C-alpha cells in the first residue's frame, strides 16, 4: 500500500514544487503529438475507404453482385427432327442435369461427388480445370431418381454447396441406331471448335451437333438458353427471383426422309455392312439413308462417357462412318450405264454395234476376263447392259479413252461431291489423264482405261453418287442436288442434253437387267417397271490402286442401283452390300425399298379417296358404310 501512503503525503505536503510538478500544463508538446497522431490515424483510415469506395468501387460492386445473384442457365430444348410427314425422328425428353457452381467449387469434393454419380474423378478434375471461364459446369445429364435424391440431400451449404440441379433436355434418338448416320448426334462443344471463328457465339459446355443433321443444321436446331437470376443469401438459400430470361427452343427440322421407307431400308439391309440410299430423282430429296454397322445414339446424348466413346470410335468396322456418303468404293458394273451413254453420245458405238465375248479379251498385252467364264457370244448394247458383259464395255472403254469416259461420268456427278446437306461427304475419284498427272506425276496408260470401263481401277464412288448418277439417266439426263431438308427448291446440278434415242437405249438396257432375266431379275415387281444395274466390285483391285487396306475381308462388294418407274422415275435406291460376294445379294434390298414406296403410294391413294379400310371394310359395317358414304357425300356436297 505504498501508493496510498504516497497520496496521503501528497495531500499533506502541497508545496509549491509539488504543485508545479502536478501542473498538467507541463505536457502540451506531448498532447500535441497525440493530436497529430490522432489526425494521422484518421487520414490513414479515410484513405482506406477512399481506395475501396471511390477509386475502384466497380470491382467491389461486381463482387457483391456475384455474391448475391445466383444465375442458373435455363436450357433451351433443341428442335425436333421430323420426317417428311411430320413424324418425329429425334425428340427431347425432360430430364435433370447436375451442374457445379464455379464460385463454390472445391477440388476436395470431387472424389465424393464422382463416387456417388459414377463419374471418373480424374476426368472431372481436368474438366473443371479446363472450363475456367464457365461460371457453371454441367457434369452429368439424365440423372436417375437415386442420383437426384443423393444430390438433393448433399447440396446444402455444409456438404457440397457447389452442386445444383437444373432441368435439362435429353435428346432422344430412335433405338438401336435407326437412322443414326443421318440424324447424327450432339455433344459438348470441343475446345478446338471453340477456338474457331465459326463457333463464335458458342460457350464452353454448350451442346452442339457433332454429326449428321444435328451438325449440319445446328444453328436451326439449337435454341437460345435463358437465364434465371435468383437472389441468394450467404447460406445459398434463395430469397427471391430477380429476373428470368425465357429459353427460346430451337426450331424443328422437317426432313425429306420418309420413316416408312427408312424402316424398310433399315430392315432389308439387316446387319450387313453396307449402305442403302433412297432418293427422289425428280428433286434430289433423300427418302431414306442407312449405313451399317450402326451404333446406339442414345449413348451419345449430351455427355458421353469416355469408355463408350472409345468403344465406338475404335471399332475396326468403323460404325461412325456414314457409308452412304463417305464410302469410296469401286462401283463395279453399276458404272456401265454411264459407259453406255458415253459410248453412244460420243458415237464410238451405236445400239447395233456388236462385240464378241468369248469370256475375256486381251488389251495392251493384258488379259481381261468377263465375269461369265464361257462368254456372252456376239453381244450388242441392250444385252451387254442387262447381262453385264465386261468384254463389251472393255471395247467401248478402249474406243472412248479415259478422258471421254471421265467427261460423261463427271457430268453424272462421279468424282464430285453431290452437295448433299450432310457433313463429311467424300467426293470419290474419277480418274483422267490430268488427274493422274496431277496426283502421281505419271502418264496415263491406256490399259488402265480397260479397268475403269467396268467400274474398277481408280474409279471410286459413294452409294449416293452412283444412285444419283444412274437415276439421273432415267430422269432424261437431269441431275438434281440431293438434299435432306424439306421444302428446299430443287437445284439442277448438271444436264446431259443427250439424244433421246441414246437415253432410251441405255434405259431399256437397265430395264432388261430387271425384267428380261438380267442380273437384277430379283428386283422384278409385278405392277411397277423397275430399272437398275447390278455391280460386283472387286475389293482387291480397289486396294491396289489406293494402296491402303480398307477391309479385313477381300470378298467382292455387291451393288445394285434401281429406280422406278421406268418412264418417269420417282424413286431411286442403291444398295451396297460390302463383301456381299455376288451382286444378286444386293438386289432384294433395293426391291424391298422400291416396293415399300409403291405400296405406301397406293395406300395413300386409297386413303385420300376416303377408302380407309379398303380391304377389311366388308367385315366392318361402320367402315363399309363410311367407304360408301364418304365418296357419295363428297360428290353431293
Amino acid at each position, binding site marked *: 500500500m505504498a501508493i496510498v501512503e504516497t497520496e496521503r503525503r501528497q495531500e499533506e505536503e502541497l508545496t509549491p514544487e509539488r504543485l508545479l510538478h502536478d501542473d*498538467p500544463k507541463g505536457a502540451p508538446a*506531448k498532447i500535441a503529438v497525440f*493530436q497529430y497522431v490522432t489526425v494521422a490515424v484518421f487520414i490513414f483510415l479515410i484513405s482506406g475507404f477512399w481506395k475501396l*469506395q*471511390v477509386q475502384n468501387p466497380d470491382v467491389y460492386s461486381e463482387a*457483391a453482385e456475384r455474391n448475391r445473384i445466383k444465375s442458373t442457365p435455363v436450357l433451351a430444348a433443341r428442335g425436333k427432327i421430323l420426317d417428311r410427314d411430320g413424324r418425329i425422328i429425334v425428340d427431347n425428353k425432360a430430364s435433370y442435369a447436375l451442374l457445379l457452381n464455379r464460385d463454390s467449387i472445391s477440388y476436395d469434393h470431387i472424389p465424393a461427388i464422382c463416387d456417388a454419380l459414377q463419374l471418373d474423378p480424374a476426368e472431372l478434375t481436368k474438366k473443371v480445370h479446363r472450363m475456367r471461364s464457365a461460371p457453371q459446369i454441367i457434369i452429368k445429364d439424365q440423372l436417375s431418381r437415386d442420383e437426384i435424391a443423393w444430390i438433393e440431400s448433399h447440396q446444402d451449404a455444409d456438404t457440397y454447396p457447389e452442386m445444383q440441379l437444373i432441368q435439362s433436355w435429353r435428346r432422344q434418338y430412335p433405338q438401336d441406331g435407326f437412322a443414326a448416320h443421318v440424324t447424327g448426334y450432339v455433344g459438348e462443344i470441343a475446345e478446338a471448335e471453340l477456338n474457331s471463328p465459326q463457333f463464335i457465339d458458342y460457350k464452353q459446355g454448350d451442346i452442339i451437333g457433332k454429326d449428321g443433321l444435328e451438325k449440319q443444321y445446328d444453328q436451326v436446331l439449337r435454341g437460345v438458353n435463358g437465364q434465371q437470376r435468383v437472389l441468394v443469401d450467404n447460406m445459398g438459400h434463395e430469397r427471391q427471383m430477380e429476373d428470368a430470361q425465357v429459353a427460346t427452343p430451337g426450331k424443328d427440322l422437317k426432313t425429306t426422309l420418309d420413316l416408312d421407307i427408312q424402316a424398310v431400308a433399315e430392315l432389308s439391309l439387316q446387319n450387313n455392312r453396307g449402305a442403302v440410299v433412297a432418293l427422289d430423282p425428280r428433286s434430289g430429296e433423300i427418302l431414306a439413308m442407312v449405313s451399317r454397322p450402326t451404333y446406339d445414339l442414345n449413348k451419345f446424348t449430351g455427355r458421353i462417357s469416355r469408355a463408350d466413346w472409345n468403344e465406338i470410335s475404335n471399332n475396326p468396322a468403323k460404325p461412325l462412318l456414314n457409308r452412304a456418303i463417305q464410302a469410296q468404293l469401286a462401283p463395279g458394273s453399276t458404272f456401265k450405264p454411264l459407259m453406255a451413254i458415253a459410248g453412244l453420245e460420243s458415237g464410238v458405238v451405236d445400239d447395233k454395234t456388236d462385240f464378241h465375248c468369248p469370256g475375256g479379251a486381251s488389251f495392251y498385252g493384258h488379259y481381261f476376263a468377263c465375269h461369265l467364264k464361257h462368254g456372252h457370244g456376239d453381244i450388242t448394247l441392250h444385252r451387254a447392259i442387262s447381262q453385264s458383259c465386261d468384254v463389251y464395255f472393255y471395247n467401248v472403254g478402249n474406243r472412248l479413252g479415259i478422258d471421254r469416259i471421265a467427261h460423261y461420268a463427271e457430268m453424272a456427278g462421279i468424282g464430285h461431291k453431290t452437295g448433299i446437306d450432310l457433313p463429311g461427304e467424300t467426293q470419290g475419284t474419277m480418274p483422267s489423264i490430268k488427274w493422274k498427272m496431277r496426283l502421281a506425276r505419271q502418264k496415263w496408260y491406256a490399259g488402265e482405261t480397260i479397268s475403269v470401263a467396268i467400274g474398277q481401277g481408280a474409279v471410286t464412288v459413294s452409294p449416293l453418287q452412283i444412285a444419283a448418277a444412274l437415276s439421273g439417266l432415267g430422269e432424261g439426263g437431269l441431275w438434281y442436288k440431293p438434299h435432306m431438308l424439306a421444302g428446299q427448291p430443287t437445284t439442277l446440278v448438271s444436264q446431259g442434253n443427250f439424244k433421246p434415242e441414246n437415253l432410251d437405249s441405255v434405259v431399256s438396257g437397265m430395264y432388261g437387267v430387271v425384267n428380261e432375266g438380267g442380273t437384277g431379275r430379283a428386283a422384278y415387281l409385278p405392277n411397277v417397271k423397275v430399272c437398275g444395274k447390278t455391280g460386283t466390285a472387286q475389293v482387291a483391285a480397289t486396294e491396289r490402286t489406293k494402296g491402303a487396306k480398307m477391309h479385313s475381308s477381300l470378298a467382292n462388294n455387291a451393288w445394285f442401283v434401281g429406280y422406278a418407274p421406268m418412264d418417269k422415275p420417282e424413286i431411286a435406291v442403291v444398295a451396297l452390300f460390302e463383301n456381299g460376294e455376288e451382286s444378286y445379294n444386293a438386289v432384294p434390298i433395293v426391291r424391298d425399298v422400291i416396293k415399300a414406296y409403291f405400296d405406301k403410294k397406293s395406300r395413300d391413294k386409297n386413303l385420300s379417296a376416303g377408302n380407309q379400310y379398303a380391304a377389311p371394310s366388308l367385315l366392318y359395317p361402320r367402315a363399309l358404310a363410311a367407304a360408301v358414304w364418304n365418296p357419295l357425300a363428297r360428290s353431293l356436297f
Partner: protein
Amino acid sequence: MHFYRTFRDLDWPLLVVTLALCALGILQIYSATLSTRWADAWWKQILWVGTGVLMMLIVASIDYHTLMGRVFYFYFGTLALLIATALVGNKVFGSTRWIRIAGFTLQTSEFVKIVLILLVARYLTGLKGETLNWKELGKIAAFTGVPMLLVMKEPDLGTSLTYLPILIVGVLMAGLRWKYLLVIAGVLVVTLPIGYYALKPYQKDRLVSFIYPDRDPKGTGFQVIQSRIAVGNGGMWGRGAKESSQTHLGFLPVPHTDFIFSSFAEEHGFVGIVVALVLYLLLIMQVVQNAQTATDRAGLYICMGVAALLLFHVLVNVGMVVGRMPITGIPLPLMSSGGSNTWSVFLMLGLVNSVRLRRFVN
C-alpha cells in the same frame, strides 16, 4: 474546499457528438438487423445508451480524486470478477467473456478499462521523478499485465490489447527516457516472433488471412474479403439504408456489432463514413481538450487514457473493416450494439466530465 457545481458546466459539445454517434449507431443497428434474429438489438441499444448517459452523469458528479483513492478496491474487485467469469461465465463462440449479474449479461473485461485508466492515473501522479525508472515501469506494467493475461485467457486477445494504449500513453505522458524506449522497442522486436507461436490457431489464422485474405476465401479470409466487398460496394454515396446486399443477405459477419462500420459504409458510402469519422475525430479531440484544461496531472492522465483508448478502438475496428488491420473482434465505441461496451464508454466519458467539472478547483 466544497464547491457547488452544476451540470451547466458539463462538456456539452462532447455529449452532442457522443449522442450523434449513438444515433448513427442505433439507426445502423436497426437497418442491419432488420428481419434477422437480432431485430430487437436497436431498442436494446437505446436502453444501453439511455442508462449509459445516466451512468455518465453519476460518475461526472463524483470527484475523480475520490475514485482514484478507492482504485485498489475497484482493481481487485474487477480481478475477482474476471476470475469469476473464467469460472462461471457463459461460453459463447468458444470463449468465456460474459457473466450474469442481476439479470444482466456483462462482459467484465470492458469494465477493467475504466479501472485501469484510474489506476494508471493514480500511480503516475504519485511519482516524484521527471521520468520513470525501470522499477516504476515494471510495477505499472505488472498492474496492467495481470488483467491483460486474464482476459487473454478467456480468450479475448482484442479486448486485452485495448488495455495497452492506456498504459503506453500514460507512461509516455509521465515521461520516459529515450534509452528506455529503445530498449523496450528492442525487446519487442525479439519477443514478437516468439509471441506468434504462443497465439491460438484461430488468432494465427486471422493474422495470416489479414495478410493474405485470398488464400482461403471461404475460411478465415471470408470476413476480411466480405467486409472489403461491402465497403467497396457502398461507393461514393452508398447503397442506401436497408438496400445493402452484403449486410442484408448475411455475407457480412455480425453486421450490428464488430462489423457495423462495414454495414454503415455499404449503406452510406464514402460520404457517410467521412461524416462518422469526423464525429469520432471531434469526440477524441474534445476529450484531449479536456486533458489540456485539466487542473492537475491526474485529470490529464485520465483524459489522455480515455482518448488513447477511444483512438485505439476506432483505429483497430475501422482499420479491420477497411482491411488495414487484422481481425481482432473489438467493437466500435458508441456505434456497435452491446451493453457492456456502451456502458464502459459512457463511464469513461463520465470520468472526463468529472475532470472537466473540477477544472477550476485551484
